[in-house]
């Protein structure tokens, strides 16, 4: 898990993940989106690959990158746990609001 969050802590890498979740893309096509060297983009992709957030495959002379949905779901699940905390809070707020004024326990 640590590797996943370290990988996603960088804005460029988050953007790469978002793009390749939608559509598989070649490394060179991805590199054109960013104001950095091809080698720098390749390094970002390597970090994402090590964290299992993306997978790479070869097609002819191209390297195609796609998002690994399983790992990304795991990250989203953490947000889901935070959501549960808030669902609990809102349930309790609703209880307070439905009590008549002045009828609150002290």
């Amino acid at each position, binding site marked *: 898990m640590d590797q996943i*969050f370290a990988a*996603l802590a960088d804005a460029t890498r988050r*953007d790469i993940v978002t793009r390749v979740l939608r559509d598989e893309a070649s490394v060179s096509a991805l590199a054109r989106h960013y104001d950095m060297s091809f080698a720098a983009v390749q390094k970002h992709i390597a970090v994402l690959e090590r964290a299992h957030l993306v997978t790479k495959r070869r097609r002819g002379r191209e390297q195609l990158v796609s998002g690994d949905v399983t790992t*990304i779901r795991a990250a989203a699940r953490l947000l889901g746990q935070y*959501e549960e905390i808030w669902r609990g809070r809102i349930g309790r707020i*609703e209880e307070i609001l439905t009590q008549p004024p002045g009828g609150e326990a002290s």
Partner: protein
Amino acid sequence: MTVISTTPDTATLTMTIVAELAAPPNRAWQVWVDPRQLERWWGPPTWPATFEQHDVVVGGRSSYYMTGPDGEKSHGWWHFLVIDEPHSLEFEDGFADEAGVPDPSMPTIRARVELQETADGTRMTVTSRFATLEQMEQLVTMGMAEGMTLAMGQIDQILAAA
């Protein structure tokens, strides 16, 4: 079930929860600014919150602790950034040490609360923004360790009422 939508976004590191409350904004505002009402819902039943300080002015601070089942305490703080009664509220929420001093090594969340009047009461939107995904993970991991997440029975109860 009053929660109408939740939108976790791993790209923008936010979690947005929208709920319909059966009371007007003026009343809903009170559950945030009255510490006695706030401490009835901020912590789960197993970790109730006690607000020792709750200074609801821009730049004001809150100091609170939550008490666990074995009497252990987890301290936290708020720092108010925006207050527009009874429409919106924005604050930072972080962890503190036993003396209530903010702990910079722990995650800080920036929360924005919006209360919008509707025909039936209030639509409340709470947006929580994390600095990094690592912080978000740290928070959730700690939250689970402290029993902040709901007991399964409570989840069932909420789902049954949906």
